[in-house]
């Protein structure tokens, strides 16, 4: 798979998930402040699991993105030096 394509996919995933995480984060703090009891405990555990999974995917996407971009920069500078 081309580096550029992977970079595009990971950055799209990170942007979309970060947008959703902002929403989730605000909801999480609203839950703490207003002392909500929205769902039964088992549903809350499942939602917490999804939230943590999303966070891990974001971190992975950003890491992959950084690595690929560094690689692209290195390749480009190598080309320019030749």
């Amino acid at each position, binding site marked *: 798979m081309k580096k550029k394509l992977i970079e595009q996919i990971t950055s799209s995933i990170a942007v979309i998930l970060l947008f959703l995480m902002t*929403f989730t984060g605000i*909801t999480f703090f609203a839950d703490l402040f207003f002392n*909500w009891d*929205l769902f*039964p405990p088992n549903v809350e555990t499942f939602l917490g699991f999804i939230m943590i999974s999303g966070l891990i995917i974001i971190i992975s996407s950003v890491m992959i993105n950084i690595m690929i971009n560094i690689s692209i920069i290195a390749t480009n500078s190598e080309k320019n030096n030749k």
Partner: protein
Amino acid sequence: MQQIVKKITSNSISFVYGFAFLLLFSALVGLFIFGLQYQNKQRKIKLIEQYSQEIKPYIEKHNDDIIKIFTEVIPTMQTYCNGYLDSTPYNCPQLQKTVFKLFPNTDSFSNFSSTSFIKNETSNNINSATLMELSGELREININQEMLNLLEGKTNDPIIGNFYFAYYYPGNSDNIQVAIPIKNSSGETIGVILRNVIE
């Protein structure tokens, strides 16, 4: 000059778009939080209805015995628990036998064993009350204003919340409970039956 004008226009457009996005995002978040607040309220109403309706036939059937628990057993716990009051929370097997007689599990409801009783009985602090579990365990607990109002008969409808503000025993603090007021024959609130919400 043209380039500068172009740059300023471009920056203004970016600012307008950014501002519009922020407004849209805030509106969405506001709407979302409003929706969740509504969902939280509906869930509380549903749980109160479910837990208070479920215990209603039992209270009607054993009304006299439940009144006895609040008017005779809890106020005279010293006589039941003689020799057991040194430990905290007070563990009192004699009291358990009496409570089982007055509050039998023969025609029980769901999560029967998590039922407990609260009476505004303590002398030292107006924000504390006595909590007695079916096991005969007695504790002094901190109560909030909502519970105090219910115990003093200022409000009559069952309430939901986390009422285990125990002095000695911070266990069960994650659970929420439904508090159902118990009235005597003259309509005065004499105590509260507490049911753990277990799902």
